[in-house]
């Protein structure tokens, strides 16, 4: 019996990746949930906004790398991030001006906006591929690991290694900071409260002297920041490839909804629910049990509940179960 190795194996293959992936989803879901909460529609273009934001960061990173600027052990992309956010803000504000504002003034139903955002998705998608192509792009530099599996083994003399990547660390830290900031902003600041008021009752917000266009503008700016950050962190950790960002949309929406739409806390919780249900249910316990069981009793089979083919399906089953018991998500989301 060897609990330590069992735990390290579990941590290495389930806990750490789950937390990192969960944070990535959470950051994405925050953006979706914010648009839903304040502008009241499900923004399909969020995935591709992330892609575009990340793309600007990639290009800027290359530029900086070309100039020889670097952040030492940290990825240069972090330096590019603020500029990329700026570009994305411009993009989103432009889109709002040209596209969304019209429907807002027309007081179009949310579903129309959903379809409109699908159109925007297509366009963003085209732009990204046009500029940077459809391929994988690598823009990660700096120290790759905070601790790598091999180093860990050497250090501890254990059989199992535990690797912890720089990008995972950054992702988790950023997620925590961003959530705290967002919370403070929405619940404590005037601008934040005016955003919530606007989302609740547009006409009445007007009567309270809130300038709706300002609210919308601030929303898009925050969304741009969130999307770009999420996109860059995801790209650093996995890789930048335009197509995956569209695919990322599904788990992101699942996270936002399972947590309760429009609720930032929910987005975080949802991200982890989805991430961990993907990672754990299809996990093969053979290795872990191998360490835990007394000698001779180690399992011969995989001890896997379901094959990984179903990991996506399983995360949706969990989502369904959550919704059946909590119809508006874990944290009482809104619904239009």
């Amino acid at each position, binding site marked *: 019996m060897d609990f330590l190795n069992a735990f390290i*194996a579990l941590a*290495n*293959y*389930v806990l750490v*990746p*789950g937390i990192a*992936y969960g944070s*990535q*989803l959470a950051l994405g879901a925050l953006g979706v949930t914010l648009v839903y909460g304040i502008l009241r529609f499900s923004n399909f273009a969020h995935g591709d906004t992330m892609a575009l934001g990340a793309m600007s960061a990639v290009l800027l990173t290359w530029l900086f790398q070309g100039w020889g600027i670097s952040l030492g052990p940290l990825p240069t992309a972090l330096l590019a991030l603020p500029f990329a956010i700026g570009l994305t803000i411009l993009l989103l504000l432009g889109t709002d001006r040209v596209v969304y504002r019209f429907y807002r003034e027309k007081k179009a139903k949310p579903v129309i906006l959903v379809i409109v955002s699908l159109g925007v998705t297509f366009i963003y998608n085209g732009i990204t*591929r046009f500029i940077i*192509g*459809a*391929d*994988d792009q*690598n823009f990660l530099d700096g120290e790759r690991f905070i601790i*790598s*599996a*091999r180093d*860990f*083994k050497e250090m501890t003399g254990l059989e199992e*290694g535990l*690797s912890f*990547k720089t990008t995972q660390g950054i992702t988790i830290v950023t997620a925590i900071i961003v959530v705290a900031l967002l919370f403070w902003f929405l619940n404590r600041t005037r601008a934040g409260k005016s955003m919530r008021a606007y989302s609740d009752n547009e006409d009445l917000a007007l009567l309270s002297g809130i300038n709706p266009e300002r609210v919308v503008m601030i929303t898009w700016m925050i969304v741009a920041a969130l999307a770009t950050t999420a996109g860059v962190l*995801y790209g650093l950790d*996995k*890789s930048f*490839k335009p*197509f*995956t960002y569209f*695919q*990322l949309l599904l*788990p992101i929406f699942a996270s936002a909804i399972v947590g309760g739409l429009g609720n930032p806390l929910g987005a975080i919780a949802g991200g982890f629910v989805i*991430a961990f249900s*993907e*990672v*754990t249910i*299809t*996990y*093969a*316990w*053979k*290795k*872990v049990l191998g360490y835990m069981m007394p000698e001779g009793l180690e399992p011969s089979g*995989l001890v*896997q509940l379901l*094959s*990984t*083919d179903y*990991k*996506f399906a399983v995360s949706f089953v969990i989502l369904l179960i959550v919704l059946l018991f909590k119809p508006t998500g874990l944290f009482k989301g809104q619904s239009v």
Partner: protein
Amino acid sequence: DAHAKEVKLGIVFGFTGPIESLTGPMSAGAEMAMKEVSDSGLLLDGATVTSARADSGCIDNGLAVSGAERLIAEGINGLIGADCSGVTGAVLQNVAIPNGMVMISPSATSPGLTTMEDNGLFFRTSPSDAREGEVMAEILQERGVESIALTYTNNDYGKGLADAIESSFKAIGGEVTIVAAHEDGKADYSAEVGALASAGGDLLVVAGYLDQGGAGIIKSALDAGAWDTFGLPGGMIGENLPKNIGPDLNGSYGQIAGSEGPGIETFTKMADEGGFDGTSPYTPESYDAAALFLLAMQAAGSMDPAEYKDKILEVANAPGTEIYPGELAKALELIKNGEDIDYVGASSVELIGPGESAGTYRMIEIRDGKNETIGFK
């Protein structure tokens, strides 16, 4: 008269969708062959060759079929494609057979297509995955691998290949600890890597696409320190993989359809000059597909599919003068003079039985971040 003649070849590839990054070089390869022939002015007494593209989406039957239908309408004389096995079946059944159009796919490798009813209209310049399974098993055995974990991209290609590898490897006494599918284009592969690592094995064989889930799996596995070496079937061989993953991949090995000899080298050089990557998967095969069409037309003296379809096997196989990339003009000349040719091309085309490549494989090992050819099988 020379000027009136125009041969048009259609290309149905997934320019958008999950293999969009492969299709650029693939179509460039095919079009290079067309240009070569066109420039020679020797085809059918000076016909020019043009290409017409349509998007298959790789996985969208409806789109692929209507695209192919459009190409037929544009008056093509042959159809290169489709790329992915699924849409290839759909286009074959719904467009090619009804219209009596010949199709040569450079990349649809599913074993299922071998036995599909095709009225003699379907060929492919790539071998069936059934063969690759055997080859890979042999390679693994030679390297002393006793057990493997196996993951595949969840489509007909990946599944067929994984089945083939699994059964071949087991047949020669190897152990397969787990066979797990992965979906392409997903955001995260920790779950798959977790399961694979738990099952263990000397080596992780990744039967996927190099810039899709396959790369994601390898990255995840390396990051977690689960494996250092990987087995890489054809879909994983390409310069993008070592480029994106870096030095950690050194020492991994695999194989891809292709053969020894000057064919591929010449082709790579030609591709470089043409401004695209000749080693990108299925790019040589695409060149060969286009070349086969044109040579068969020359042999039949006609661009009517019904007439040249029987000539394809003839020009592709021995006996005859061996023809390599860049030698299409020579081949046309020879055929015109009534001599036999044996088209070898960039991927060592040797069509067997139902019109698919016999399959020699290039063994690859990644050294210093490069795909090195270390032998052939």
